[in-house]
């Protein structure tokens, strides 16, 4: 059981001059995939950093599995936008660090790491250093490093933001496959509306700074009712009328945000 709950969370930086989050209430159910979209600088990454335990709320509470978040830990694996792989460690060494920290026996560790390498399709690159890999491959390693921990909660901060369009699509499809095989509670930060609708069960829309929750859109019920799961390719899903409808709805909501703040 590992839900994530934001309880009246506000967060200010630098002696209170910059208010990043204002009174955010948000509950993500166990094994739910929730995406947060919003204009840049709206505090969506701050939400993730609070859940990860890298930052702490100025007021309110962040709970993961009913316990208040006090520090980072492998129960809440983070996938960073810029991958954050250790450049001096090989693919295998990067993936296995979390397992070594858990004192997992060498043999068991080897099996788990090899499974992860297999899963992300990086066989043959086990001994490569991150800088010998493309951006897409690096992000796959970062995802494997998170998955191998078998975390209850997965926190992803614009994980595909630094990838080119084609690689991004492949990674999105892979993530959907992974999420179906092995569902986790996921908090996914993105500014891509289509990505959010394609991946998430619910999409939370945030306002400009100070970030507040504006609207939460239920995607899952529509996805199930319209049978999106029948299609394995992202472009087929994105062609469906129900997808276009949801995407446009969220777009409008975000656009109001953008123009609304302009005057």
């Amino acid at each position, binding site marked *: 059981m590992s839900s994530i709950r934001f309880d009246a969370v506000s967060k200010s930086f630098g002696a209170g001059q910059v208010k990043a989050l204002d009174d955010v209430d948000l509950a993500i159910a166990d094994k739910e995939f929730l995406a947060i979209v919003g204009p840049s600088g709206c505090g969506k990454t701050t939400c993730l950093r609070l859940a*990860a335990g*890298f930052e702490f709320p100025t007021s309110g509470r962040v709970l993961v599995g009913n316990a208040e978040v006090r*520090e*980072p*830990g*492998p129960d*809440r*694996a*983070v996938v*960073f936008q*810029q991958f*954050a*792989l*250790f*450049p*001096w*460690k090989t693919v295998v060494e990067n993936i296995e*660090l*979390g397992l*070594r*920290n*858990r004192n997992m026996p060498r043999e068991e560790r080897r099996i788990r790491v090899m499974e992860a390498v297999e899963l992300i399709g990086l066989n043959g690159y086990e001994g490569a*250093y991150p*800088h*010998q890999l493309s951006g897409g491959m690096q992000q796959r390693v970062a995802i494997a*490093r998170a998955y191998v*921990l078998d975390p209850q909660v997965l926190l992803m901060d614009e994980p595909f933001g630094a990838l080119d369009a084609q690689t991004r699509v492949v990674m999105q499809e892979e993530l959907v496959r992974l999420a179906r095989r092995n569902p986790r509670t996921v908090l996914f930060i993105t500014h891509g509306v289509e990505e959010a609708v394609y991946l998430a069960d619910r999409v939370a829309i945030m306002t400009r700074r100070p970030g507040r929750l504006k609207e939460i859109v239920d995607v899952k019920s529509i996805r199930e009712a319209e049978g999106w799961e029948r299609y394995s390719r992202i472009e087929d899903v994105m062609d469906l009328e129900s997808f276009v409808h949801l995407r446009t709805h969220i777009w409008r909501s975000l656009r109001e945000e953008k123009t609304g703040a302009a005057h």
Partner: protein
Amino acid sequence: MPLGRRSAIGVTTLGLLVLAWFMATGANGLISPGRFPTPADTWTAGLQAMVRGYGDATLVVHVLQSLKLVALGFVVSVAVGVPLGLLMGTSATAEAVLNPVFMLLRPIPPLAWIPLAILWFGLGDTAKIMVIFFAAFVPSVINTQAGVRTIERPLIEAARMLGTPHGRFIREVVVPGAAPMIFTGLRLSLQASWTTLVAAELVGALAGLGHLLNLAQQDLYPGMILVGMICVAIFGALTTALLGLVERRTLTWVRIKGDTA
């Protein structure tokens, strides 16, 4: 530039320098041999130092003595400096405590420690190591600390997220992350070790290249002075090259990063 061409140019430059030396100190040369020795004088002095010895010891003994002290002084400086830099880089408290001491010690020229070192330890090895230490541990501390600061925050956060215990965090994240800068510090420490050692031996020593230089000056023996200087240059360059080799062996991943980035 290809390596072959680079070294060809280097050898040519050195050759021209030696040629210029021959001409400038030759029969109708510009410089009198009393001020600057001819290549032949230097060769004779070198042979004398090697075979018969100069200043109670052969050249080999002088070189080995200096090399030994540079190595010891360097190792002690690095063994203290790098951990201190790591501590100051990772702990704000340690930095707050140690920084004032540092600010006070840094303006003291390392050679100003020589009188105290001789007073405490006499003319032997320990005094030299102490003086080298005060000169050479500073660049190790400063560069290590700066290197720790260059580690990108997401890497530190990733390590914490993965539940990395403190000791492993230092060994596998902080040290490799700071390693390129640590090696910069080591290079500067090595340089400082040579500089201060020769100076310390000039002031008071029983053997070593600085001692040889000091005697040659008192004997008004330009050829021997140059022999001492050439030895310092050669062995200084050799030890620096050795350190560079260790660096390239240790930081394979940096070279890979540089090749592809």
